[in-house]
């Protein structure tokens, strides 16, 4: 019997400080046993449990795309006991990752459709995975127009800054970068809250599926905008969070109604959420 | 004490009808023998739910923490002392409370009763008029016992049966017990050599399942995050390791030092019958001997571990 609690041993290959306040770092992991990379085959939208011996485990969305070979990357916010310990670790340190866990964005359903991505703050990680995945030459033709709105409080808090600049320049996608506010006179991009920029830039719900990831307030304010535009609740896709321990639907704590966020989610459509108790 | 029920209903009805209080906290009759369920009513029409008897052994003061409305609450001697402590510790403003004092003749120990009927099933326990005896019924038997012989251990040594702070009272005060030797059990443990004492404590907590019923039933334990739940740093492990379990029980007792009124709720609620008061009583004895202090008797006096006095006990400075 495979032991679903046993992590794959990994080494920290690279650490990138993403934000100005140094609270968000991207960790690139390499598997100690090369065959584990095959076993860890994942799809954008999924998450993994990062396991640190002596500290605990944390459920983090996978930020790298399966099209990026040789490593798996996660962007982690320093919030509690385990994340603080992880932030103090160095390149070369050994730890574990368990996964891939959870379900993924509805890629099959999204083929042939326009894809709208709305992200805010550090919830953007699995959205990065999705964008890199779609932009891969063999995948790009499967999707029609790709429109992304991504914002954070200020320029220093944006993730993946270099990639955002590159995406903004591309002509096979529309990238709208925004910040809530800035005192940088050379800021070239939008200024405005993510829901407001969404309203401004997304013109139509025609043949489109929207993925929204962000803190509860952004999700709450963006939903009505998308619904007004004509998005069907089935075509608004959200990714939830919850306190998790096992990540495999056994310890019982992450349930919303009869669904486990770690196993039946974290990706749910708005239509599904409307049928579930508002226990989050 | 079952005869108090009518008077309690009368007082509660008046308080709610006249708008003196927004809610009234009392007990309603339990669905199993020797249990009553704490209840909150806000509609004067519901006062018939209220019930009182010698099985009202929880501490209703537990339900006051954090409330902002005006509350009518029943309080026996020990419970009223906990209310006083709550007021002193800024957990509830005195003016928000209308305390209905209950002169208490003691709560029946459900464990002692079960032992007395040799653990046969009990289907009904009825207090007989006059309150001195109660009848226990089960499949194929009925026995009558004297309440005085079946008091909860804390009630047996109680010297504060009458409420110390109240706005109305349901009956005449009852005579206090005298010549009570409250700390014989503590003295017995104190006289044990350290090795024997360790073994005794290990045995005592060996069945603990870390359910925290004792902590949660205690009105003194109102910390937003209990020390056992902290993770930065983690003070206590969460498994049933005996050392971690003893740490929990001892540290909790120390946090109650000088504040515990020996209401017995902790011991009453333990699902595995651990005599939790062995720990808190030791600290009550120390508070009494070292600081001449009993908790919750005076709204104006702060507990000894809260203030510094020049003539404080100093013998530990060698």
């Amino acid at each position, binding site marked *: 019997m495979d*032991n*679903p609690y046993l992590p794959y041993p990994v080494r920290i290959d690279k650490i990138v400080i993403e934000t100005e306040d140094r609270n968000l770092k991207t960790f690139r992991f390499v598997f100690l046993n090369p065959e584990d990379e095959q076993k860890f085959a994942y799809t954008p939208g999924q998450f993994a449990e990062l396991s640190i011996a002596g500290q605990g485990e944390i459920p983090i969305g996978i930020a790298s795309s399966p099209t990026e070979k040789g490593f798996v990357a996660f962007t982690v916010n320093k919030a509690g006991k385990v994340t603080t310990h992880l932030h103090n670790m160095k390149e070369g340190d050994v730890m574990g990752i368990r996964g891939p866990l959870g379900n993924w964005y509805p890629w099959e359903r999204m083929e042939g459709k326009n894809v709208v991505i709305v992200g805010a703050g550090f919830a953007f990680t699995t959205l990065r995975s999705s964008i890199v995945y779609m932009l891969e030459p063999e995948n790009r033709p499967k999707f029609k127009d790709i429109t992304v709105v991504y914002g954070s409080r200020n320029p220093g808090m944006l993730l993946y800054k270099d990639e955002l600049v590159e995406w903004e320049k591309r002509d096979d996608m529309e990238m709208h970068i925004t910040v809530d506010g800035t005192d940088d006179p050379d800021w070239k991009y939008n200024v405005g809250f993510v829901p407001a920029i969404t309203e401004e830039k997304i013109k139509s719900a025609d043949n489109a599926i929207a993925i929204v990831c962000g803190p509860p307030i952004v999700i709450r304010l963006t939903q009505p905008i998308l619904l007004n535009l004509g998005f069907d609740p089935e075509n608004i896709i959200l990714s939830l969070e919850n306190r998790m321990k096992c990540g495999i639907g056994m310890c019982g704590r992450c349930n919303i109604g009869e669904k486990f966020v770690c196993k039946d989610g974290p990706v749910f459509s708005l239509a599904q959420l409307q049928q579930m108790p508002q226990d989050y | 004490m079952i005869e108090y029920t009518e008077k309690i209903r009368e007082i509660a009805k008046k308080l709610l009808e006249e708008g003196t209080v927004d809610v009234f906290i009392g007990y309603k009759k339990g669905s199993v023998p020797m249990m009553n369920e704490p209840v909150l009513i806000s509609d004067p029409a519901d006062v018939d739910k209220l019930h009182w008897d010698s099985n009202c052994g929880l501490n209703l003061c537990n339900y006051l923490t954090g409330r902002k409305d005006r509350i009518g609450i029943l309080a026996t001697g020990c419970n009223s002392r906990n209310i006083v402590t709550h007021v002193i510790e800024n957990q509830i403003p005195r003016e928000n409370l209308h305390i209905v004092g209950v002169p208490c003749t003691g709560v029946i120990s459900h464990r002692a009763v079960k032992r007395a009927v040799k653990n046969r099933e009990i289907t009904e326990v009825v207090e007989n008029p006059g309150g001195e005896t109660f009848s226990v019924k089960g499949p194929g038997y009925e026995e009558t016992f004297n309440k005085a012989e079946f008091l909860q251990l804390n009630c047996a040594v109680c010297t504060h049966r009458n409420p110390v702070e109240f706005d109305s009272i349901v009956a005449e005060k009852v005579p206090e017990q005298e010549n009570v030797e409250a700390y014989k059990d503590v003295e017995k443990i104190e006289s044990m050599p350290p090795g024997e004492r360790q073994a005794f404590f290990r045995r005592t907590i060996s069945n603990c399942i870390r359910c925290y019923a004792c902590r949660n039933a205690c009105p003194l334990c109102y910390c937003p995050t209990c020390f056992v739940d902290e993770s930065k740093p983690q003070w206590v492990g969460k498994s049933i390791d005996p050392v971690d379990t003893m740490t929990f029980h001892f540290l909790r007792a120390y946090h109650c030092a000088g504040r515990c009124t020996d209401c017995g709720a902790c011991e009453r609620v333990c699902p595995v019958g651990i005599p939790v008061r062995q720990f808190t009583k030791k600290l009550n004895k120390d508070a009494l001997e070292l600081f001449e202090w009993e908790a919750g008797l005076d709204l104006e006096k702060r507990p000894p571990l809260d203030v510094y006095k020049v003539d404080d006990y100093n013998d530990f400075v060698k």
Partner: protein
Amino acid sequence: MSTKIFPKDKWVEVLEGLKDSYKVVVPVKEGDYFNFRPLENGTRPNFDFQNTRLSAKSAIYPQSERMFEYSLDSGDSDAFQMKEAEKDYSPQAIVGIRPCDAYAFQLVRRNFDNPDYQDPWWVKKFETTTFVGLGCNDPCATCFCSSAGCGPFDRKGLDVLLHDIGDAYVAKGLTEKGEEFLQKAGGKDAGKEDIKKAEALTRDVVKKMGPGISADKLKDKKATDLYEAPFWEEVAFACINCGTCTYLCPTCWCFDIQDEVQRLDQKGDRLRNWDSCMFPLFTLHASGHNPRSKKHERVRQRFMHKLKYYIDKYDQGIQCVGCGRCVQFCPVNIDIRQVAEKMNSYEG
């Protein structure tokens, strides 16, 4: 399948003899109540009980269990990596388990053993355990097993069912594992008279069971309606959010994972401990957000999970076997039978 008879005056001998083939777990009197304990030298089995205080779930699923061990010494080649801890899966026999507690394992199994994931420790321990049940001659007034999917002589989840006919146990083999147990236990074939006594006993007790819990309409109610019902604050008022109901309950299984470290020895364990949805910490996010920060939200979760979500998920009835422990031992007398009645009769 065979039916054997074991006279009571030879029963302990039989159990002692079985120690060669199984780790035998029996009910033992400890102070005022009974618990299941391993049969060792000096253990005195005592079958004169209605039910044990704690359920038998810890025989398969201990309250604290080591999952992995690891070294924190960077000199070790496998430092910081999880290593499987040694476990004992030698055959085990739980003798004297009540049918409700045995059926409970069937309910819990759906969580730990499913097509997507199997919990290796729970499943292996369960598969190497033989359940020798003891039918209830004398159910408590608080028992409502018959309305919760099983009954005082129900056979689900059992390998052998013992009938106490006074001076002997009539033991009916129910599965291959049960037959193996009966072979190893020895014992004569039960005679026709004894079997008749056992059957009559079963019929009489089952007839006496009361109406129990009302849960028949729960399947057809909408979860969101029940979730938004107005009675939860009233139901939850008395609750002190301890773990008594969850820890005594044979069908509750939620757990926590904790890493513990012996800093001086530079090693540690990853442990799994029982956890309770009653505790505020259960759903606290690192951000500080807690979806169930209020007491009534946690109380609602417990009853919705047991009486509604489990039905929605598996369509096999409620997650409760009617053992009555929570009814008897809830420190504030919150009665699941009363809550189920409220839920069952609620019109949204």
